[in-house]
């Protein structure tokens, strides 16, 4: 019986992915580093501000890791939370671990910290890119209940590699945000199947918005992370230009599509409903040749 990544807390994910007893936490809850802005608003705080950071090993490689806790304010990024992420990434530039692993589960900017939260997300984006430019591989895993949205959806795509599960969701504006702004005709946030066809792991994999899709188990995520570390990174102008070409092709090819199903049909899935098949290995095999090109 393998453990579900989706069902696990941030701390359980770290324990489930890293080698036993290898995790060493930085700024643990005992240091009681809480958000001053939530205190101003008289809102409850968390002693780790919703993110756990530290170092550990995976497949005998030393890595740095950060795990967002969706259970605290939906994993949203405030001043302290963001600074912990930036600290891990800047430390990686200095100490050169085999990779930085970011287990993201977040709605993006913590609106209670409005301006400070937005700047914090921007600092995380720049720190990810600075780490990559310095030669550090940054791997993102997304497979939690809250998905990865807002500015952190942009930050995720700044990483070297993204690993998702079918249950994972990745985007910029969440369905509720668009429905509130533009009405239910534009985006019905309660239509869960349609939301899944828009931001779910399988659609993101077919579009090549994520690099790897795995079943919802700690072992599968671990295998993909180890492979991601071995693959390393390609931070180069040539890679960026290939990405540009592929993103331009995507708009041309799918720009008029109204639904995920239209895109999958265009990708050669005779029966778009078939992508809901339960076995991940079967899905990956079927997606071979029926998936947008990846850089």
């Amino acid at each position, binding site marked *: 019986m393998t453990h579900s990544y989706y069902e696990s807390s941030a701390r359980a994910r770290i324990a489930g992915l890293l080698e036993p007893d290898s995790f060493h936490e*930085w*700024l643990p809850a005992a240091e009681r*580093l809480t958000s*001053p*802005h939530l205190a*101003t*608003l008289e809102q409850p705080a968390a002693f780790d501000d919703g993110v756990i950071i530290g170092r550990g090993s995976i497949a005998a490689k030393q890595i740095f890791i950060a795990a967002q806790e969706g259970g605290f304010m939906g994993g949203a990024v405030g*001043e*302290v939370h963001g*600074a912990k992420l930036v*600290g*891990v990434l*800047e*430390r990686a530039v200095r100490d050169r671990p085999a990779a930085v692993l970011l287990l993201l589960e977040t709605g993006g*900017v913590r*609106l209670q*910290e*409005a*301006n*400070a939260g*937005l*700047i*914090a997300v*921007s*600092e995380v*984006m*720049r*720190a990810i*890119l*600075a780490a990559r*430019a310095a030669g550090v591989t940054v791997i993102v895993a997304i497979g939690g209940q809250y998905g990865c949205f*807002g*500015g952190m959806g*942009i*930050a*995720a*795509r*700044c990483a070297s590699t993204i690993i998702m599960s079918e249950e994972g969701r990745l*985007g*910029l*504006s969440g369905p509720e945000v*668009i429905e509130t*702004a*533009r009405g239910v005709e*534009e985006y019905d946030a309660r239509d869960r199947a349609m939301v899944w066809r*828009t*931001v779910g792991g399988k659609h993101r994999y077919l*579009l090549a918005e994520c690099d790897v899709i795995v079943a919802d188990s700690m072992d599968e995520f671990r295998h993909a992370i180890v492979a991601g570390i071995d693959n390393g990174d390609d931070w180069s*102008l040539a890679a*960026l*230009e290939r*990405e*540009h070409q592929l*993103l*331009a092709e*995507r*708009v041309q090819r799918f*720009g008029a*599509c109204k*639904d995920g199903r239209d895109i999958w049909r265009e990708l050669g899935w005779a029966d778009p409903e078939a992508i809901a098949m339960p076995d991940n290995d079967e899905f990956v095999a079927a997606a071979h040749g029926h998936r947008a090109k990846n850089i």
Partner: protein
Amino acid sequence: MEWKSVVEQLCPDGHEVSQAGNLIRGYGRCGPHTVAVIGTTNHTEVGVELALAMAAAVINVIHDYPARPIVFLVDTSGQRLRHRDELLGLNGYMAHLAKCVEMARRRGHPIVSLVYEQALSGGFLANGMMADVCAALPEAEIRVMGLAAMARVTRISEERLSELGKSSPVFAPGAKNYLLLGGLDALWEGDLSACLMDALQSIDTTDHRRTLGHERGGRMLAYPVVQRVLASA
């Protein structure tokens, strides 16, 4: 302010900048410098096409004009809130733009941004906030979201939020608040071309915003928290 007027003030020694749709593109002369100008106008939302067009402009500068400074003129009401853009992966397009800006920085292009009208969340993250020097006109509007929407999400009344905004730069919109938090390097007033020349003299490619926020008293924890992570065992 109209973008044309901004460009004329930034580049009094001549410019060749034009508008296509809501995209602004070209180059201008500012003292000894020739700068690339890339921006948006009409408080536009940034969707996949516009993000891609800005990225193409950045790549073009990297290719054709090595080390030429890039000036982003920011006027956006945020990321485009459409199902279709989300379906196509708007976050990926925004990240692509941010990567292009980072690549330009690494290849020696000084990056300056000026919020001349409006800057909101997602539309601001991928270009303006990626700059080495980020400035705003004093009357520019910068925010994550409006107070009314923020009141809905946080379940704190608008009155209370604007009251809190008087004592803390965190909660209320405004360029001055972003200055205190270190999100802006400076507010530009008076001779804009002199401001731009000064900025180009003082390019620092490391992200110094948490230091500014700490020095200015607006964001007291980001800097020490990063230092503590760096100093941990």
